[in-house]
């Protein structure tokens, strides 16, 4: 074996050793390092999401009292029960304030044929929701907006212009002012109005008003199980604002988050 052969062998041996070291020792560690880098990125994303969720949750806890008050006040506009006594009281008060004679109220339909375009597809969204439908008050159907609806027909008598003001007042029971909801009473959608001369003649007119009232889904409840103490607290608060709203106080509700 010549000196040159020895040199070649030594170089090859060193190269083989380096290659073996690389592939057997370093390369697995580098793969582990790459895997850890990926895991770190995933964990970092998870941490970011968790921190955002925690931040949102903390913010939600901070404004809980305001949110609870908002939901409770919205119960005046959209109660959990049909709350017809409150509705009659509000209509009578509004009619009286506008010099209108409130003659009659009638539940328009109990077959699910909602009168308005906004509620005409009510039953289509209620497929398979027989249990929910069974929990609804008689005459109510599930509307397109997800709220159960109750179509009513009212008869009034008064002058044309008083009737116009009365219709404006009905809309004003729950009205939107900018980003706020002004809740003075039930949310009613007037689907139709028919005016005809009253028996005593002009200027008295008889008005038949078809309107839709809305309810909170029964399975959801007025406050979704929350109480003033906390969201997971007592659940007996649903009736506090739904059945005692005969004389509703005006409430402005901001729609901001």
């Amino acid at each position, binding site marked *: 074996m010549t000196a040159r052969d020895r040199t070649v062998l030594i170089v090859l041996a060193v190269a083989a050793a*380096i290659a073996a070291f690389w592939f057997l020792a370093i390369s697995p560690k580098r793969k582990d390092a790459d895997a850890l880098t990926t895991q770190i990125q995933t964990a970092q994303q*998870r941490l970011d999401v968790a921190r955002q969720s925690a931040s949102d949750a903390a913010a939600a806890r901070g*404004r809980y009292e305001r949110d609870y008050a*908002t939901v409770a006040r919205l119960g005046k506009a959209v109660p959990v029960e049909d709350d017809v006594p409150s509705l009659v009281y509000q209509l009578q008060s509004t009619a009286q304030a506008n010099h209108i004679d409130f003659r009659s109220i009638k539940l328009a339909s109990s077959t699910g044929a909602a009168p308005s375009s906004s509620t005409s597809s009510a039953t289509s969204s209620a497929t398979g929701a027989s249990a929910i439908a069974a929990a609804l008050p008689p005459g109510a159907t599930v509307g397109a907006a997800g709220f159960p609806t109750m179509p009513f027909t009212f008869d009034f008598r008064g002058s044309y212009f008083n009737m116009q003001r009365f219709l404006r007042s009905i809309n004003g029971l729950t009205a939107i002012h900018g980003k706020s909801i002004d809740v003075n009473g039930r949310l009613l959608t007037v689907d139709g109005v028919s005016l005809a001369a009253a028996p005593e003649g*002009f200027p008295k007119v008889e008005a038949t008003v078809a309107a839709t009232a809305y309810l909170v889904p029964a399975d959801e409840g007025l406050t979704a199980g929350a109480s003033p103490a906390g969201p997971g607290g007592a659940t007996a608060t649903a009736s506090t604002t739904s059945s005692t709203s005969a004389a509703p106080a005006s409430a402005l509700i901001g729609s901001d988050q």
Partner: protein
Amino acid sequence: MRAVNLIPAEDRRGAGGAAGRSGGGAYAVLGGLAVAVAMASAWVVTGNGLDDKQAQLDRISQQADQAEAQAQSLASYTKFAAVRAKRVQTVSQLAESRFDWAHALHEVARVLPENAWLTNLTATSSPGVSVGSGASGLRGALAVPAIEVAGCTTSQRSVAKMMARMRLIDGVERVSLDNAAKGDTSGGTSTGSAGSGDCRGGHAQFPQFSMVVFFSQAAAPVAAAPGTATTAAAVASTTTPAPTTSAPASGGTTK
């Protein structure tokens, strides 16, 4: 004469070539040591990097667990906030989607000609709504809010004027005439019976009309109109109701 090197061969300078007398073994040992040091360094550096990453992963995972636990403990607040937002949004949408019939009635009173009077007015937000008397066939033509008006005026020209005036109402898309017919003349008086809703007041030449005023869907959003009472009073003084003498037994006029 030939020179002769008398120094022994092993003592001469450069004996053994570049490898020296060890035959390059020293270089091989040094090279091997260098390679070993380099490999050890690479091993240590890689291992330390791995340990650092593992520690970082553990730290981040722990922080994520804590944040998730914190969020989970407050999840009910987040859920309630979502309920609140959804309910506010739904109520807002329902309230904003209402058609402002009060404004529409105000507009009808504003544009009604002096020589026209109505016996019936039916306003519906869609053709499917049934309220009051039966709807005309025209009402179903467009699935938009509409007002069906029926009444009388003094001439067919006035019917045309009535239609033109109805188009002045805010948000009106179309005014369609259902019919406009004079009474069966017999000596110039109407033959309509008292209970038929004839509003001609005995004037057979007065046409009785029926028309449908269609609104665009987005017209007349519900909004508070300040000064409503003043406006309404002004309208009342400028519009002329039906002559009381023409009021039939069935009800006369509404405006």
